[in-house]
């Protein structure tokens, strides 16, 4: 087995209120996990707002430097990427997917121009024919074709098509890993399903691994192989997605599952703030103890 991505004891501390401030935020605290090259998977990160999910994603993308710990991708680390060639190779292999398909595209720019730009900068292609072929290959993978989107503006495509185009753009350089930070949070339920099905398809048919960040527990359950649950910078629970979500064990994971809005009493005015007793228990425990393995393959942070 070779390691695709190795995140080892990674932490990130920010100064808040400008760099001269003395106030710190520990955005990510001692996070470790690894993805294997031979076993493409959908690795999901869920958790509290502000718990460090985006920060972790940005560190993996090389957009933010860890304060502590190491991240290596296909054997190369941040230091190796000072070399231009290594950096370019890295940018080809790890690609981000934008969050909101409607905002990612400028309404005055034809959507294929984004794909064109990626083919030029990351693959160094110059000829019209080779660029079109690489665009078409990527679009085919998401169930579209170059002919369908050529010359079209964002508002001429449906939301689902646009998000597919965004993913196709990321696929142009043939990445091994996609990092999708809330790719479906702005879209309705049926569109959401079609996007997550596409991610699944990329994993199964093209061997692409996906780090999927979401607040939506239903799609997390539906597509993930493994997941981690984060709270206040810590991983509080980690393991096979269905094992964890069927019966979460950390108090915060339990609170999360219990807080999913139910539609069963629609319109009855039963909305209450999240369960206080559970919330107190979850906050009290955050960060305490160590991630401890359990028999069913998960790890839970216990004191």
């Amino acid at each position: 087995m070779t390691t695709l991505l190795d995140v080892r004891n990674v932490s990130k501390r920010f100064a808040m209120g400008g760099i001269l401030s003395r106030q710190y935020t520990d955005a990510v605290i001692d996070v470790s996990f690894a993805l294997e090259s031979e076993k493409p998977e959908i690795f999901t990160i869920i958790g509290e707002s502000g718990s460090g999910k985006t920060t972790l994603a940005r560190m993996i993308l090389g957009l933010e430097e860890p304060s502590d710990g190491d991240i290596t991708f296909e054997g190369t680390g941040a230091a190796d990427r000072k070399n231009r060639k290594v950096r370019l190779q890295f940018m080809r292999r790890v690609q981000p997917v934008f969050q909101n398909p409607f905002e990612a595209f400028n309404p005055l720019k034809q959507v294929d121009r984004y794909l064109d730009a990626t083919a030029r900068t990351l693959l160094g292609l110059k000829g019209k024919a080779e660029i079109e072929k690489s665009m078409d290959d990527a679009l085919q993978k998401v169930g579209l074709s170059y002919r369908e989107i050529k010359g079209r503006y964002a508002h001429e495509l449906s939301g689902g098509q646009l998000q597919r185009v965004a993913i196709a753009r990321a696929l142009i350089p043939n990445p091994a890993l996609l990092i999708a930070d809330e790719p479906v949070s702005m879209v309705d339920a049926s569109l959401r399903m079609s996007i997550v099905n596409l991610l699944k398809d990329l994993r199964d048919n093209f061997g692409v691994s996906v780090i999927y960040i979401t607040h939506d527990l239903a799609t997390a359950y539906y597509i993930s192989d493994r997941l981690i649950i984060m709270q206040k910078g810590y991983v509080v629970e980690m393991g096979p997605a269905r094992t964890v979500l069927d019966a979460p064990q950390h108090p915060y994971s339990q609170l999360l599952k219990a807080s999913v809005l139910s539609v069963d009493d629609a319109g009855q005015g039963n909305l209450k703030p999240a369960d206080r007793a559970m919330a107190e228990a979850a906050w009290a425990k955050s960060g305490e103890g160590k991630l401890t393995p359990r028999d069913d393959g998960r790890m839970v942070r216990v004191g």
Partner: protein
Amino acid sequence: MAQSNDILTVKGLKAYYQMAYFGIEREVRAVDDVTLSIRKNEVYGIAGESSSGKTSLIKVLAAAIRPPLKVVDGSLTYRFGDIEIDPYKAKKEDVDAIRWKHLSYIMQGSMSVLNPVRRIKRSFEDFAFRPMGVPKKEFWERTEAHLRRLNLSPDILRAYPHELSGGMRQRVTIALATVCQPEFIIADEPTTALDVVVQKDVLAMIRDVQQQMGSSVVFVTHDMSVHANMADRIGIVYAGRLVEEGPTRTLFTAPKHPYTSHLVGSLPRIGDTSPKAALEGRPPNLADPPAGCRFHPRCPLAIDKCKTDVPPLVAVGESHRSACWRSDDVKPLATFGQPAEALS
């Protein structure tokens, strides 16, 4: 029709994006002939799929439109106590005077009201200090208490917007829009970037402010589970038109439009391991919408008449309106954990 407790009355409203690309004129009919009214002291939810025109509609209601979006027809009247105002006919000063204090708008994406180079604290001073009309000390006390209700530490007042996570920024804008307890709150996808725990707290806070003040809230989300828990009434938008409107419980249990029935029936739940049936086809192009009922190409109940005649939005029950030629034949899909029979 206008009742004395209607705070907003909208009649025959049309708002289009009018553009010219390379000499070709295009018109996207994002809000097409919408008539509705919002009562004092109610929460009105607007639902619909992506690009159906929800954001466009709510921008028009908030008097926050910019070219190429233009109001091309219809009227919109707010009534705040003695003030009666149509923002599209009134003077700019008069419209500015009602903002924040009477009318506040939480935009989709949330970043835009926060000035990127100023600390959060400054944004609160700029927008909320004057409308609230209390001494500085009390102003900050109230602001900090309000932030805590949204699970935000008052420390974030010293931060710059880029130093906060997406969900924190979203809560900051909600705090800004609600701290003065305005009579009319308009919110576009206010909780989509939040985790479910915080989402629940934020929604409960909005309801709380609304009930304490007897204010009205109009909010957009594509998330039907949020509507189920927040809204007193729901309006369903399809391709720029209001296609159904009614009390929340009624729309969930006895919808009278096939599109609504699809929306409430297709909700994913934790534990789903196979996909729910998606709606066939794609959302219509609003630059060239289908004739007749705009939903007919995707509608399981469509008949010939639907292809040519636009169904009017008519009463189908107590405060319940639907725009469907076959509203009597609409059945709720098996939904939320109860067998379909129990619902009909």
